[in-house]
């Protein structure tokens, strides 16, 4: 069954249109192992039917897509420029991007250091490839959810933050996190969907997420203050 899911990549050896191209097919990688690597991505990206923009853009239909073209998603200026310059997501460009994101798109807000292991990248690409057009024999999958999200009451999630208060509170964040979202060792927190921001901060506050600095910072923020920060960082004009 899983075997059937393995994706194939047709590598045409020999020039296009050559009279008799020798065709050789091999799997990109193992999508089952790729699904395990996907947990590093699923905190920020959704994939599958109905996937929505989250901290990162949805990755359904990624292959063959021009960079920075999901309508309404607030891409970094670098990513927009790369898309305008013609960057299209293919096996090769995605492999380069996943190996070291800032080498391909220097100002990306994607807070991911890259996958050094070419085999792991291949497995992840095989996983991602299932959610783009062709091959058609791939079963649909629901968007994955990140484990470890805190349980929050609807009242907490529904709090409307005061962005002016958030702006003041944000000065404590911007000692480390850069306001424009660039990531030089500390992740971007700019332009996250507010719900994601609130969930992440409460996950630190409840010590579900492990980072000690963030546990301390979130630990003394009230629900209203977290909502205020989410409102401010979620609507920053860059």
């Amino acid at each position, binding site marked *: 069954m899983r075997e059937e899911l393995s994706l194939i990549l047709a590598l045409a050896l020999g020039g296009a249109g050559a009279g008799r191209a020798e065709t050789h097919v091999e799997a990109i990688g193992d999508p089952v192992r790729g699904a395990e690597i996907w947990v590093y991505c699923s905190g920020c990206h959704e994939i599958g039917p109905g996937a929505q923009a989250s901290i990162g853009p949805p990755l359904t239909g990624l292959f063959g897509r021009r960079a920075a073209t999901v309508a309404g998603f607030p891409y970094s200026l670098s990513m927009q420029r790369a898309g305008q310059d013609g960057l299209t997501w293919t096996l090769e460009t995605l492999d380069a991007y996943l190996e070291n994101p800032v080498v391909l798109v220097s100002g990306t807000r994607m807070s991911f250091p890259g996958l050094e292991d070419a085999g792991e990248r291949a497995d992840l690409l095989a996983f991602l490839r299932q959610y783009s057009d062709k091959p058609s024999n791939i079963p649909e999958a629901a968007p994955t959810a990140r484990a470890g999200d805190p349980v929050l009451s609807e009242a907490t999630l529904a709090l409307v933050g005061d962005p002016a208060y958030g702006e003041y509170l944000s000065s404590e964040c911007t000692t480390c996190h850069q306001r424009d979202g660039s990531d030089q*060792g500390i992740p971007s927190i700019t332009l996250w969907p507010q719900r994601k921001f609130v969930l992440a901060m409460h996950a630190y506050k409840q010590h579900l997420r492990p980072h000690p600095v963030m546990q301390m910072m979130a630990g003394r923020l009230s629900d209203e203050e977290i909502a205020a920060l989410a409102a401010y960082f979620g609507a920053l004009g860059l």
Partner: protein
Amino acid sequence: MSLNRRSFLGTGLALGAALSAPAVIGQARPRVVIVGGGAGGATAARYIAKDSGGAIDVVLIEPGKTYYTCFFSNLYLGGFRDFASIAHDYGRLASRYGINVIHDLAVDIDREARSVALASGHALGYDRLIVSPGIDFVDGAVPGWDLTVQNRMPHAWKAGSQTQLLKAQIEAMREGGVFCMVAPPDPYRCPPGPYERVSMVAHVLKDRNPTAKILIVDPKEKFSKQALFEEGWGRHYPGMIERVGPDFGAANVEVRPDSMEVVIDGTPEAVDVCNVIPAQKAGHIAGLAGLANDSGFCPIVPGTMQSRIDETIHVLGDATIAGDMPKSAFSANSQAKVAAMQVRAALTGARAFPAKYSNTCWSLIDTGDGVKVGASYQAAEDKIAKVDGFVSQTGEDAALRKATFEESLGWYAGITADIFG
């Protein structure tokens, strides 16, 4: 031509005055003068200018045109950063935020007249003053040492030419020589700094001069992140580093720069490089203005960073008595944001929120072996009090230490953007 131009300008001014409401005539924007362009002063200038949208005239007085950060200057000593990477200028504070950056030295503060005198002879009136002068050294703290011998025995506790000099001395040290650090007593700038420096010197010597020794003469019983540093020194630099504490006379130390000797409790030791980090006090101007108390540092109001001595003056950073907060760039940056908000509230009626303070200090022990300590603080009645904190643990795995170091690189990029724009 010039007559026409002048008469045109004159008409324009007269018209402008006639159109203005009487109450506005002669009423200039309120002015904040900030003395010192380091982590405290530059952050305060930037936040006041950024958040007041031009309603406040922000003047920053800083003698240096280039600021070399003390934080990460140890990484320069260790060869992990180049010198240019710790240099910052004030161009963006002027061009992006409209701050009037005056490269001059503040030599006096007349609190009665609310005026700051500059070395150039000018005087600047202020509505609010922010004093962020960093540290100076206590005269006579280490007998035999003063600024006239700082090239024989560098302090390198204000980054810049001193840091370059110390690096050159370490690299030129004779084979098997002794690097000595005379460590400061509390309180001083950057509590883990001397011990990170020792780690970086050891890192250089391990490669270039592996039979060299490092001697720390330390008047303190204990020091910041001690267990982490001692574990790291044992692992990375076994046998290289010796620390003499007060039990063995380190509180009674004297230096002889001419003969390159350090006298510990009466016993002279010959050394090859000597890094003397003397006891510290608030930057000279703070004392001159009467803002410091007998401790040599400046008492402040915990919720606002106002001077306890003059409520029109805020004092920031290493010069202050900041309760449980350490003297660090992170602390100064955190305090500056509280002061900036308070100044805007006083001068333009902006909203003021309760003060929140925080600090994190990262230190590098060897390649990829980073550790950190941090805490959050709030304003209590009598002092800035610690709320919560954390510190790296001994025995952490290599991947976590590497991640901690990489995080410190992100922090450096973040805080320098937050300070200098």
